[in-house]
């Protein structure tokens, strides 16, 4: 079956602009995670959804970052007033349930802020 998909695969934007990154999880997976991976680093947790609600958003770095999952499936990560330091690969993962279930990662969106 289809895995986790993310669009766009690459996004180049200018400093100060607004961007939206989309994640389509595996069908039927109730848990969805967003991570950020900077060059030479491992993935860093941003936010975790269980269904439609954000169960844990403690990893969001500041209020420029926001994510939604209105119907409990597709999720959108939104970044306002982008900064050069936001440049990274943004990874999405989904799992059948939450705790204890294997996470399946998408290929990521590479965001470059110029």
């Amino acid at each position: 079956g289809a895995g986790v998909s993310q669009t766009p695969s690459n996004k180049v934007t200018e400093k100060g602009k607004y961007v939206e990154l989309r994640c389509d999880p595996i069908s039927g997976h109730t848990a969805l995670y967003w991570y950020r991976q900077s060059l030479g680093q491992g993935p860093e947790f941003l936010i975790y959804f269980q269904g439609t609600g954000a169960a844990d958003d403690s990893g969001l770095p500041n209020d420029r970052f926001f994510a939604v999952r209105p119907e409990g499936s597709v999720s959108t990560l939104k970044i306002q007033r982008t900064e050069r330091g936001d440049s990274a690969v943004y990874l999405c993962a989904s799992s059948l349930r939450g705790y204890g279930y294997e996470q399946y990662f998408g290929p990521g969106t590479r965001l470059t802020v110029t």
Partner: protein
Amino acid sequence: TQLLEQSPQFLSIQEGENLTVYCNSSSVFSSLQWYRQEPGEGPVLLVTVVTGGEVKKLKRLTFQFGDARKDSSLHITAAQTGDTGLYLCAAKSGGSYIPTFGRGTSLIVHP
């Protein structure tokens, strides 16, 4: 915040060689996972270990969880070019559902 230290950071070897990479911390973990990530892809889970002293084998890969559940190792026997990639360890502590990732070991296997 728990910190996972992975070593070595980079490893370049010839096909057929053996290698071991390490994941260490001062914290005790409830579970630890190893992932492999190829360029342009997300991490793919290789194994989960939960019991201190546990050893798991996946073909030519052997994973060990330390007795005190603070460290882990991954040993690859007779490396192949297809083993090239970034090897990440990730661990959870207590009842947390959020794994913390190490920085990874970047492995290149030359033909």
